[in-house]
């Protein structure tokens, strides 16, 4: 049911843009005001979420470890899976962020043949997730061609590698195909695995449909309905130079794409998509396991008022002597 709500939400968004631009001609609302607003919400919301996380204290090192801790020099330690210093922590984080290492190693448990528990791997989830994220990253970097003039060399290089097979004209980008297949897989997986379906919420389906909608509208306008790309770049450079003007010659498909992207940007800081920033602040990953090597003082420790035995004796020495109690100092 959550999946249907999310699908309806995305269809509703498409209808809003369709009516807003297609019939009411609100070009500057959908072409200038909403994109600016969405980007501002994205930046401020992102900073707010990160700073809010950053003011939470992490008094103790709590990394998840999967190997021998560094201890005595003649005991071989697992540097990557139990990092003891900043260097190996950074390596572990880099592998986590770039290759999803912990997802690669994760297992799933199933009951098979009666009450026998069986462990399997989750390599398909890992492969699908990795393909989805990398395709998305390359697609975002490719879009810099609209925002920077002249187009930077790395964007041209990415484009030529992405269109390596030169299928069709304009050439098919491999990432366009990959992101659709990967997003479909991630959706189908949620629907068909009962346990995953049970825990899937609206907030899980909505970003998937939103990103799927962005990919599909982008593919439609590149390969099928066609738009005036020069006019689009005039619009995007207008945003960048803070002299925005919305030309009317661009096809409706562009505005559908743009509106979904705006919604994604505005929704980003309030959703699970914040794992973009959150992954770097995961205490189970980004800390070195040096609990025993270094002293970590709890930052919210306050000065406890204590009354030591010496002070006690100073206070009651005379009385103690009268009662024949032993005292340390005369």
């Amino acid at each position, binding site marked *: 049911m959550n999946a249907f709500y999310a699908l309806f939400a995305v269809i509703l968004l498409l209808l809003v843009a369709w009516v807003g631009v297609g019939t009411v001609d609100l070009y500057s609302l959908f072409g200038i005001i909403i994109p600016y607003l969405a980007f501002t919400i994205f*930046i401020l919301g992102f900073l707010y979420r990160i700073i809010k996380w950053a003011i939470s204290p992490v008094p103790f090192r709590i990394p998840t470890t999967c190997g021998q801790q560094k201890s005595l020099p003649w005991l071989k330690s697992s540097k990557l899976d139990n990092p003891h210093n900043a260097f190996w922590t950074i390596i572990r984080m880099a592998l986590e962020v770039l290759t999803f290492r912990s997802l690669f190693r994760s297992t799933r448990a199933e009951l098979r043949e009666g009450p026998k528990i069986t462990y399997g791997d989750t390599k398909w989830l890992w492969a699908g997730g990795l393909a989805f994220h990398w395709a998305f990253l390359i697609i975002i970097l490719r879009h810099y061609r609209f925002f920077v*003039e002249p187009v930077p060399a790395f964007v041209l290089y990415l484009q030529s590698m992405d269109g390596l097979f030169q299928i069709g004209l304009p050439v098919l980008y491999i990432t366009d195909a990959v992101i659709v297949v990967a997003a479909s897989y991630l959706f189908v997986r949620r629907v068909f695995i009962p346990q995953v379906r049970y825990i899937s919420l609206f907030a899980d389906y909505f970003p998937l449909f939103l990103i799927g909608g962005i990919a599909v509208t982008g593919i439609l306008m590149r390969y099928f309905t066609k738009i005036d*790309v020069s006019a689009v770049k005039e619009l995007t450079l207008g945003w960048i130079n803070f002299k925005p003007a919305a030309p009317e010659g661009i096809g409706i498909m562009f505005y559908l794409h743009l509106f979904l992207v705006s919604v994604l940007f505005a929704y980003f800081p309030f959703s699970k998509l914040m794992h973009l920033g959150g992954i770097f602040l995961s205490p189970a990953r980004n800390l070195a396991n040096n609990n025993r090597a270094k002293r970590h003082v709890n930052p919210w420790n306050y000065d406890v008022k204590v009354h030591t035995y010496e002070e006690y004796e100073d206070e009651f020495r005379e009385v103690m002597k009268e009662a024949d109690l032993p005292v340390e100092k005369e």
Partner: protein
Amino acid sequence: MYDAGKIIIGLVVFLALVSYPIWYDAARGDIPTSADPKIVTAEKECVAPTDYMKDSHMDLLNQWRDDVVRKGVRVYTAESGRKFEMSLSHTCMDCHSNKSEFCDECHNYAGVNPYCWDCHIEPEEVQQ
């Protein structure tokens, strides 16, 4: 804020990456904000309307290539009924002989690198 140094460095990197086009374009100063392809022909009529050519000339060229190379059809009948030879080097480049000011103008602007000239010989341009 705990580990403020590291987190602020991270946030600065994040802001630099997302705002890269703004400061890059601002630093470059006077940049052309639109493409301006020059049409240098006495001919009044293209093989298709301007709006169609703007969006979809690549489809037309692709179709022409398939028709000529695979089917041996060399004549294109425009909507107006006029007949054209299906040829990039002749029909298109006869009118638009100024590749660097016409083709390249938008292609460079939009970061498009078509592979026309992998096979065709690039036309020699008369220096003005």
